[in-house]
């Protein structure tokens, strides 16, 4: 259960990235899973090369994620903004395939892991894995930082303004394309950071991102669009749910349960379970 809660905050972080991009530019980012996988392998490579502390290595990963996101924005997203949704689905799917293809060529599809263990924390008869606690704390910090950035800072407010009314934002002197490219970069950085954190928890392959992409979708519809903190909470809920069912059934049932949930939520709460406050 508690482990589920800890892992859930990492799901939440991943979903925040997807939700931000979806909410701000109305693009369903199908590169999300590939970016998560890149984050995993980024952690693997950096950890092998620099033997730094994994949670410090998060910072260069986030930096690279931002840059990569901005580049992908200009290559694949800029042209399809405001066009039919199918266009951006196709173009992000293409980028996804390219990344997975290159990744497969470099790392094949065999499993890797990051060999790193923090001492656990024993409370009563139960021991929490150290890595789980640290990953949850890191995810929480990043999630709160993003929320603060969006709510309190000038560039954060500019992102929300462009999301609200792009033409009006231009009238204010805000370069909306620059803002969109940065928002995309932040979304990708979140995906990469969550992948890096997952890499410290479980073994992974270049294809693992797909699972987490699906979880991010579930979390995003649970939370409703454009509510980053909602995504965090929904991620934790999903983790809890997984933690609660695993003792009773095989892990292979989890996707089925999650997608049943996905459909039920879409039908019953089209604006997410926190959708009441939506304008």
């Amino acid at each position: 259960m508690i482990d589920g809660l800890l892992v859930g905050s990492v799901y939440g972080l991943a979903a925040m990235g997807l939700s931000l991009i979806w909410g701000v530019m109305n693009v369903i980012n199908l590169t999300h899973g590939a970016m998560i996988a890149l984050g995993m392998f980024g952690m693997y490579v950096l950890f092998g090369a620099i033997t730094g502390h994994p949670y410090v290595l998060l910072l260069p990963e986030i930096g690279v994620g931002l840059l990569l996101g901005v580049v992908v924005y200009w290559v694949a997203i800029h042209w399809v903004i405001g066009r039919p949704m199918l266009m951006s689905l196709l173009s992000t799917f293409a980028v996804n395939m390219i990344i997975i293809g290159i990744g497969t060529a470099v790392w094949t599809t065999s499993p890797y892991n990051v060999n790193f263990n923090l001492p656990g924390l024993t409370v009563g008869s139960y021991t929490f894995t150290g890595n789980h606690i640290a990953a949850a704390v890191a995810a929480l910090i990043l999630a709160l930082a993003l929320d603060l950035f969006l709510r309190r800072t000038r560039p954060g407010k500019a992102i929300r303004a462009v999301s609200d009314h792009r033409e009006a934002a231009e009238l204010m002197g805000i370069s909306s394309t620059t803002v969109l490219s940065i928002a995309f970069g932040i979304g990708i950085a979140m995906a990469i950071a969550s992948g890096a954190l997952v890499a410290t928890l479980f073994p992974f392959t270049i294809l693992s991102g797909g699972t987490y992409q699906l979880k991010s979708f579930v979390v995003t519809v649970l939370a409703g669009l454009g509510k980053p903190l909602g995504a965090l909470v929904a991620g934790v809920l999903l983790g809890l749910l997984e933690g609660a069912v695993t003792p009773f059934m095989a892990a292979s049932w989890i996707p089925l349960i999650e997608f049943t949930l996905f459909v039920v939520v879409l039908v019953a709460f089209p604006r997410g379970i926190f959708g009441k406050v939506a304008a």
Partner: protein
Amino acid sequence: MAPVLQIEKIESGYGEVQVLWGISLEVEAGKLTTIVGANGAGKTTTLRTAMGSVRPWHGRIFLEGEEVTRLSAHAKAGRGLVLVPEGRQLFPTLSVEENLEMGGYSTRARKRQRANLERVYELFPRLKERRKQRSSTLSGGEQQMLAMGRGLMQEPVVLMIDELSLGLAPVLTQQLFLTLKSLRGQGITIVLVEQNVHLALALSDYTYVLAEGRVTIQGESRQVAQMDEVRRAYLGL
């Protein structure tokens, strides 16, 4: 004196449909210029083309003597060309104060953001009372005040306002016109699209009348107000 904003034979439209057929305007510094015309005459399109929200097909635009025809809207806003758009176009999920802060976004407006915020709150005390509220929860008139306030936050060189009086109580409209006159006294140039032709002609210095995407009449407002066709078509006399 050279006009601060000059529009030269602008043609533009939406998709394949041409709306403006060679509009030329010269806006003199420190003057209040109005554009009037029937619904669909192209007033809004003229302002949006000047701003760059709609791309001009032909013609040229000069701001303070420099050609800015191809600049994007945000670049023109950065130089002090400000449009308070038709339909308000607020940021609905941002609070009242955040909307005003966005008005102070550009580098030139940022320097005086604090003082401008004071001024806007002085002008519209209701906005100050509601400053933490989401702008989507404001009444129509309050939203219009916020759109005006946001424009004033931008440190305009030329302030273009599309339908100032829309949805406002007559008392407040009068008050806003007086505010505009005092702004003009401080050296801000104002272009106004206004449905209330009486008020527009009475308070402005220069008037353009648009019909079907062309300028049909132009002149000192005092003289335009005397013209028979204007009195008949727009003043109902």
